């Protein structure tokens, strides 16, 4: 029995930087490309110090040309490189959506499997910093709609550190969404923590009475809600999806068959959201196990407003999750 590795404490931001540093060291084909990733050190200071260590060829500052440099990343990947494209935030990724959908996700299938795109795209997502409507989108659900790419939502320090290497080994494009509210979060991690899987959901808290299904930034609000429910002797199970495409149906259905009640917490807008897809899958696969209608806690269908109290009211919060759970438990 080898001695357990020492545990270190670091922020979610540091964990991602370590992951990038690790892959750059281990594979010379890997390079990072994005707006202000080099001299500026990254809009969220994730890549600070990497330019000095790896030089301008492998830490490439780009002009503000999202469609251009994302397409360039796709091309480089098709020609054998392993690029990591940083799109700063999902809000700006809309300018690169054509390249992601019509080339990255499609070319393997369309070329009869002659060309693949082993590309990783990282972007921040989510609201909560009062950046107003154009800078506060949560559009993971849109990307999770597209066949041909994988979509990840690391919510813990361990996943922030471990998903990148596995994603880069994947022969197809992988999108990693990092919620802006998590960068400052500190967590504990084994000093030698390495790669993790990217296709399984994880039960972060086991429980018998109700399944709370969520991902990314909302995980911590959901765990807090579960704690609040525990105080009222409700035993809630919390599932962290980790992968939004493919969705790990097995873990979801096992949980729902046990608890017979489900609430899904999704920072996207309700209509046509990822939560809508998960609801449908539960009805398709576990309808006869359900005791109550599936609950959902999503963002209000409105552009995210600047004032703090309106932004709080617009996106999922702990009280809303607790309330939805109580309705499902018949205790509203």
């Amino acid at each position: 029995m080898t001695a357990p590795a020492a545990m270190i404490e670091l922020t979610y931001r540091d964990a991602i930087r370590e992951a990038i540093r690790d892959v750059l060291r281990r594979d010379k084909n890997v390079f990072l490309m994005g707006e202000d990733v080099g001299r500026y050190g990254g809009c969220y200071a994730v890549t600070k110090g990497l330019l000095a260590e790896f030089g301008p060829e492998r830490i490439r500052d780009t002009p503000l040309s999202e469609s251009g440099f994302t397409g360039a990343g796709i091309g480089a990947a098709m020609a054998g490189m392993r690029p990591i494209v940083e799109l700063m935030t999902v809000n700006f990724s809309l300018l690169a959506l054509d390249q992601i959908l019509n080339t990255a996700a499609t070319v393997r299938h369309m070329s009869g499997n002659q060309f693949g795109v082993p590309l990783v795209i990282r972007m921040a997502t989510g609201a909560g910093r009062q950046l107003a409507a154009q800078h506060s989108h949560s559009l993971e659900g849109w990307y999770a709609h597209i066949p041909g790419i994988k979509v990840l939502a690391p919510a813990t320090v361990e996943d922030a550190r471990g998903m990148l290497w596995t994603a880069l080994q994947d022969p197809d494009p992988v999108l990693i969404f990092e919620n802006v509210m998590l960068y400052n979060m500190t967590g504990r991690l084994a000093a030698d923590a390495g790669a993790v899987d990217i296709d399984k959901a994880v039960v972060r808290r086991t429980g018998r009475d109700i399944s709370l299904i969520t991902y990314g930034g909302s995980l911590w609000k959901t765990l807090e809600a579960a704690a609040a429910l525990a105080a009222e002797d409700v035993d809630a199970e919390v599932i962290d999806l980790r992968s939004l495409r493919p969705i790990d149906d097995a873990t979801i259905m096992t949980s729902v068959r046990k608890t017979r009640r489900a609430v899904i917490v999704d920072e996207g807008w309700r209509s046509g959201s990822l939560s809508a897809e998960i609801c449908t899958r539960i009805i398709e696969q576990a309808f006869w196990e359900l005791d109550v209608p599936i609950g959902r806690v999503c963002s209000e269908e409105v552009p995210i407003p600047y004032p703090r109290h309106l932004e709080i009211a617009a996106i999922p919060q702990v009280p809303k999750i607790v309330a939805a759970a109580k309705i499902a438990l018949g205790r509203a």
Partner: protein
Amino acid sequence: MVEFRMPSLGADMEAGTLVEWLVKPGDQVKRGDVVAVVETQKGAIEIEVFETGRIEQILVDLNSKVPVGTPLARIRTELERKAGVALAPAAPPASVAEAPPGVLPAAPRPSRPASMAPPIATLPSVAGRARVSPAARRLAETHGVDLATVTGSGPSGAIVRADVERRLTAAPASAEKKRPTGLNLDAMRTAIAAAMARSKREIPHYYLEHQVDVTSCEQWLTRTNALRPPGGRLLMAALAAKSVAVAARRFTLFNGFYHDDKYEPASAVHLGIAIAIRGGGLAAPALHDVDQMPLDELMTRMRDLVQRMRAGRIRSSEMSNSTITVSSLGERGVDALHGVIYPPQVALIGFGKVVARPWVIDGAIGPRSIVTITLAADHRVSDGHAGALFLAEIGKLLQEPEKL
């Protein structure tokens, strides 16, 4: 004296480490001067001061990480120096009433407007039909549990799987003695006693009897039921109820309420169906707007009522506001029953059992199915003449069952 505080430079900056002071106590500073350098996750950032005056005291030593808002130094402002007086340290710029947005000011707590309540299906249950979860429904089906005998503990009374499980464990199929659950027969007895006593005390009853040939009804029922599965079949009781309701619509003196010494005819016909409860007790729950209710629906509702009443599962909403009541003691009952009116109603129709009797038709005698219909009515409201016409109307309606 004014406090120079650790500034917030970004919505996601919670603290900063003071790595360099560019001024020392006694130095003169003016608005906009860079006075210190703070290390953040974004790197070292020069911090400017927004006051003009002299640095009095440094409050934080180097390389200490302090949260945003921590006082770093004290500055004696320009005004004070001129006036030579020590102004009370200025209250932090954010007066209590207007706390910085970081702390929610006395603004309305972000209550959840109704429109934003998670729209879980909290719709009222479909009128009459208890809501059953899929899991409960499947368990009930596989074990042949009659959901009508299960009380729901789920949201707004819905039946959930645990309820069916309890029903299975609590009541094994063996025929051991079962009391109607949830019903206090003794309490019911006292209530019936009170109502009957009041009725007899206050209502001057008069009684009328009328014999009606229901042979055509029986033949119509046999023809109709032959084409239908058991679930869709009709009984005489439904025809009887419908005929009373249709007639009551026209004879308004028998369909209403008597309150505070005056009679109020009802605008609709809510027919009370008197049902004996197993093990004793009686209830007369109301079916609403029976005069307009299609026969098939009336039959299904009456069957449902009887099933639930028998098991003692009565809903409070069903116990009120009948406008007239009909009672029947069934096939093994008696020829005619003279009932007691339920206050504040003003009439009760009784149906005896159907018997084969010799009957004269067109001068010839032959066997016919005859039923005796009785009327108990409130003489404060109606007289025998009107009562007779009312009974005759019921009898006439029963001659054309297909129109009911």
